[in-house]
């Protein structure tokens, strides 16, 4: 059983084995966030490493006001956002502010193949969404954070988190339904 308080106190006493335990415990959480926001496959592992080094450097500031996972997810989110800002030129064109006007592209042979696997196809569609939508979907469904915790992590107000979640899921559902209808014709 992973005991947050004990592990954190051991790390603060310069125990690197305890830090390795913490990395093992939270590497999935960090990877899910980075994987969703950063498209650059090569840099994902480096960014995850960077996140854990930041965690180690700043752990003395963590005062157990929130869950450790929330604090770690916040560092991962901010690191990914900073990386995206630095590499703005490599990212796709700007997204419209209102996702209701957003158009998920199709007519791509690769997408046609991926459609056969729903999870992979949903991931492909999410990749095309603005990063706030990608983040809330990932934090809510993969990392299983509540809307209030997502507010702590991203700074997006809880009401907006809920609305992002509902609209993104509705958009995805409609897109998948439309594609299924197309296939059946």
């Amino acid at each position, binding site marked *: 059983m992973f005991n947050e308080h004990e592990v954190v106190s051991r790390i603060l006493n310069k125990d*690197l*084995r305890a*830090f*390795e*335990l913490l*990395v*093992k415990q939270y*590497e*999935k959480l960090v*990877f*899910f966030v980075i*994987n969703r926001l950063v498209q650059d496959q090569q*840099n994902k*592992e*480096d*960014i*995850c*490493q*960077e996140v*854990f*080094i930041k965690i*180690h450097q700043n752990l003395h500031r963590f005062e157990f006001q929130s869950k450790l996972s929330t604090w770690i997810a916040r560092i991962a989110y901010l690191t990914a956002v900073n990386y995206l800002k630095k590499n703005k030129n490599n990212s796709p064109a700007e997204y419209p502010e209102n996702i209701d006007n957003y158009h998920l592209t199709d007519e791509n042979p690769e997408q046609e193949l991926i459609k056969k696997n*729903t*999870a992979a*196809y*949903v*991931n492909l569609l999410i990749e095309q969404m603005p990063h706030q939508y990608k983040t809330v*979907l990932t934090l809510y*469904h*993969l990392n299983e954070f509540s809307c209030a915790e997502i507010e702590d992590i991203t700074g997006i107000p809880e009401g907006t988190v809920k609305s992002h*979640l*509902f609209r993104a*899921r*509705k958009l*995805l*559902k409609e897109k*998948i*339904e439309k594609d299924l209808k197309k296939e059946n014709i």
Partner: protein
Amino acid sequence: MKELDDDELQELLNNGLVPDNKILSEEDKNDLLAYQNLFTALGTEPKEGLPMSFAANVRRKLQEQINRKNDLRFNLLALGIFASGLALAYGLLSIMSPESGDMFLNAIISFKWLLLTLVAGFVGYLFIDQRLVNRSY
């Protein structure tokens, strides 16, 4: 007739409540199924992930950074001790024999550029070393 809108269906699934199929219209059943599939897909972990050795790699990288920081502290301390040694030697020589003290000081002054270059080179090397370690991707 459709009884539940998208928001209501999502809210039900969010709360883990699955309405009885018997009371749902055909359209609602289809929507519910579509959302159930979507929720499952959204909760599916990506196939790719971090290597098995990731935690050990992070630990190794961190250990290297800590070692370099310790090296930096040690080298700066050595530099401080060297400078203090020179000052102490001058002080002691001045007490024992003021002439020897002056001679020592003159020797230091005549080699001041060499000494300053050595110190600047040493500090520069330490600085570059740390920058390389902290270099972002």
